């Protein structure tokens, strides 16, 4: 089992703990990865807003690099998955477009993409390729003291035309993984909604409203922590959580501080595989994850 690893900008920038935890987890599980040399940004849907052809070219270059390695791509970012995976689907199905993009791509880089690569998030690889039973056997510390709220984020689910893995109306892959690790998945409406990240710098009120309502809802349903397959959702829910407390409705006397640990999917996997919080880079988080350790140690 071998993949071309596409970490995405966030895992090599503002969420280094994601890259760190991913390396630990795939090695322990025996999933072989080769990082794509000098990988470039997928554009996160933003470059598409500036120039759709530019976004096609940047992602075609990534896909061509994986094709040259003869490997499918593994992503660890929901936004990269949506963008790179979505563009892959378009390039695979629209031959006219692929040929046109290949002409420019060849001119600029000498590369061309023939449409033979699959783009899969680690979340999907574990459910589909690796298998939940194999994963269960690898668990050394069942997380049965934890209630975990899955937070999918937008781009790993929608638009449905680009994503065929989970049914966006009622996705189940995170729930399956949470159960396989021994924890209990928490059901709440916000699990498929937006984290607000794309507008944080320009429309803070809107974004804080979204963070506050997602975290408060998960907490209200009894979650001990939230887990997400997208580092941008992680940044929103973790970095802005304290400030989003201004936006939530609370009962008199209740604390606005929600103290909800937010985990990257590989970190949750890592805990069940026996890695420590330190090994999984949790010191980088804004919201302390100490309460998870306490629970797991039965304190």
């Amino acid at each position: 089992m071998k993949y071309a690893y596409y970490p995405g900008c966030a895992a090599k920038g503002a969420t280094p703990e994601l890259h760190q935890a991913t390396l630990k987890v795939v090695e322990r599980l025996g999933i072989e990865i080769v990082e794509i040399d000098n990988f470039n940004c997928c554009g996160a849907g933003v470059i598409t807003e500036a120039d759709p052809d530019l976004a096609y070219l940047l992602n075609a270059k990534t896909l061509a690099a994986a094709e040259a390695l003869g490997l499918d791509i593994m992503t660890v970012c929901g936004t990269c998955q949506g963008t790179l995976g979505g563009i892959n689907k378009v390039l695979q199905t629209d031959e006219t477009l692929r040929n046109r993009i290949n002409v420019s791509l060849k001119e600029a880089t000498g590369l061309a993409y023939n449409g033979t690569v699959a783009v899969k998030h680690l979340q999907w690889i574990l459910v589909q390729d690796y298998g939940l039973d194999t994963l269960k056997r690898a668990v050394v510390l069942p997380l049965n003291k934890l209630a975990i709220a899955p937070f999918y984020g937008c781009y790993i689910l929608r638009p449905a035309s680009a994503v065929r893995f989970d049914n966006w109306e009622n996705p189940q892959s995170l729930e399956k993984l949470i159960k396989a690790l021994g924890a209990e998945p928490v059901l709440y409406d916000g699990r498929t909604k937006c984290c607000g990240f794309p507008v944080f710098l320009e429309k803070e009120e809107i974004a804080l409203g979204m963070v506050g309502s997602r975290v408060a809802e998960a907490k209200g349903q009894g979650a001990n922590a939230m887990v997400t397959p997208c580092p941008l959702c992680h940044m929103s829910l973790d970095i802005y959580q304290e400030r989003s407390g201004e936006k939530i409705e609370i009962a008199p006397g209740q604390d606005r501080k929600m103290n909800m640990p937010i985990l990257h999917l590989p970190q949750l996997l890592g805990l069940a595989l026996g890695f420590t919080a330190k090994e999984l880079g949790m010191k980088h988080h804004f919201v302390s994850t100490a309460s998870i350790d306490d629970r797991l140690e039965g304190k």
Partner: protein
Amino acid sequence: MRTQITVQRFNPDRTPEHFVSNYSIECDRGTTLLSALLHIKNQIDGTLTFRASCRAAICGSCLMQVNGVQKLACRVSLHEELETRGRLEIGPMANMLVIKDMVVELASFWKKIKAITPYVVADEGAASGAPTRQRAQQAAPLQNIHEELHNADGCIMCAACLSACATFEVSPGFLGPAALAKAYRFVVDPRDKVRQDRLMMLQEDHGIWDCVRCNFCVSVCPKEVAPMEQIVRLRRLSIAAGLNESVEAAHITQFTKVVGEEGRLNETRLPVLMLWGHWRKLFRMIPLAIKMFLRGKAPFPFKRPKGYKQVQAIFKSRTDRNR
């Protein structure tokens, strides 16, 4: 086969509390939710209230929540819904004021549509409301409009997109997907003479920049209008029309610039470039920036990774072409 439908009810004449009714009905492969609801109203419970008319996904009246998702009742096959979700829970569309059962207050939806001037303004004088005569030569530029519209004119105004909109949920003033898709439809109409005014109006709060690109509207739309994609087109057209001074427009232009220079996004450099000139906003970011730096979450702002010649060549090919 017999199945049960659970309906979220509300009838302020009877009780101020929301309540639940369960109905047991017979359904076969062809039964739609709307035909089931009509059967319930006619045969079981005449108090059940919902809007419906055409039964064929044309009028847009019967929008409701089906297992938590905004759908036209006339397009829902009970059999398929049971197969994929295993249950049938029906309620009024989300984020709207409920009048009775599935009937919600839609005045705020229509107000948003009206706010974008939902008609062609053929000459500036006509904006006053006086009707103008359609002339034969005006039809000529319309020959290719179909491609330009990208189906934005396919909207049946069922309000599914607004109800499902992540921004509308937290910011009720947001113009919303349907109105913005309609705005796009008029912005690209060659007969319209107030395009720049339209684009300028859409830059304001509650306009195109409040969209978080969550794709909910694209997913629930029964007519493939893809409102979010029309919003993205409006953003692109705004920047092309010189409306590029805002922090929102800078998000797109500076993001692209950083990736063009460095191959990847630099999360420390982007906010500085975006907020440059907007000093109060930039100043307010400093405590967060320090905290991120201390947590090892702020990449060095002046990093220039090597090995990005190919990316730079791709960018150069696009700039040359656009020039």
